[in-house]
């Protein structure tokens, strides 16, 4: 977990009832926080002005990013679940951070104006392998339902990444082995992006990885 310099955001304002509606942070969430902390010097080095988390859920991750960068950046986040967006705003406030949520599908309504401007892009997607019918909810199922290979939502988002990221921008993605990270690496390489695996951790049956993408500058 995070050390004393970058404390894990408090979630004491949330109750078990809230987790009927939004995703309760779990090992995947905390692994993502650990990866951002591990990378914090690299992140600070690019002097981010705009950080964007897609599918923010409770807001724990974008809030943690705000803890790393403080007033030196801005923090936007989206969620298709309106309760998540409202809770993310509260999570930011409870931790003294200024988080700006938007209720939307992925980055709809933001991608035109954010073209080439996102410095830190983060997505903990619905990665669980599920039947196709479970994909496309606006409620809590949207947090995990990933369809075939858990890739339905990831594959909808990947084509948007090259347009969103700034020249030195970084994209962090949470995946499990079933999502075929090697295939994602190939897809992104064709779009001109290099991939690194920042952290890997087994949590029960899941083998989680945090992937980081940046433009190839060769």
């Amino acid at each position: 977990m995070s050390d004393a310099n970058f404390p894990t955001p408090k979630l004491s304002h949330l109750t078990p009832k809230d987790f009927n509606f939004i995703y309760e942070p779990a090992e995947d969430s905390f692994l993502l926080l650990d990866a951002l902390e591990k990378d914090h010097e690299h992140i600070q080095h690019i002097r981010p002005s705009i950080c964007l988390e897609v599918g923010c859920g409770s807001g724990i991750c974008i809030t943690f990013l705000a803890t790393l960068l403080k007033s030196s950046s801005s923090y936007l986040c989206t969620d298709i679940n309106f309760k998540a967006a409202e809770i993310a705003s509260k999570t930011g406030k409870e931790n003294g951070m200024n988080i700006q949520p938007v209720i939307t599908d992925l980055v709809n309504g933001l991608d035109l104006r954010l073209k080439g401007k996102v410095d830190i892009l983060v997505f903990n997607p619905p990665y669980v392998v599920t039947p196709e019918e479970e994909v496309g909810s606006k409620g809590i199922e949207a947090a995990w339902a990933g369809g075939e290979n858990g890739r339905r939502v990831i594959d909808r988002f990947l084509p948007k990444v090259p347009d969103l990221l700034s020249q030195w921008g970084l994209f962090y993605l949470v995946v499990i082995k079933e999502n075929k990270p090697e295939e994602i690496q190939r897809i992104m390489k064709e779009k001109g992006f290099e991939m690194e695996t920042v952290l890997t951790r087994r949590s029960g049956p899941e083998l989680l990885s945090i992937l980081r993408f940046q433009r190839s500058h060769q």
Partner: protein
Amino acid sequence: MKLITHNFLTSNIIKGVKNGYPLGILPAKVEVKDVEFNPAFITRMLPKVDWVALQKAAKECGYGEGLPDAIKDELMEDTDFLKKVHNALMEVEVIEGKLVCPESGREFPINNGVPNMLLNEDEV
């Protein structure tokens, strides 16, 4: 919804809408909250901000005074100017209200400070 967020929202997601920018603001409840002023951040953000849209949005929220029509280079060194930009971008917040597509008139609600850009199936 702070005006920095408004500056990046477009309604071109609606079928038939070409640009959808800037969205009009119909504020019902606006608050101004103290946010830490970071002049280096404001200086970095300014080139990414659509200045005309910010000016218009600030006016619609009742906080447009003091923002010049154009930004001259010297202004970037002027702390008072940067503080005014900071106030408009980061401190003015629409808590309740509506965003309006400039082409179709379609309204998007803002509740509890959060704008909702989700569309119905027939609008996509």
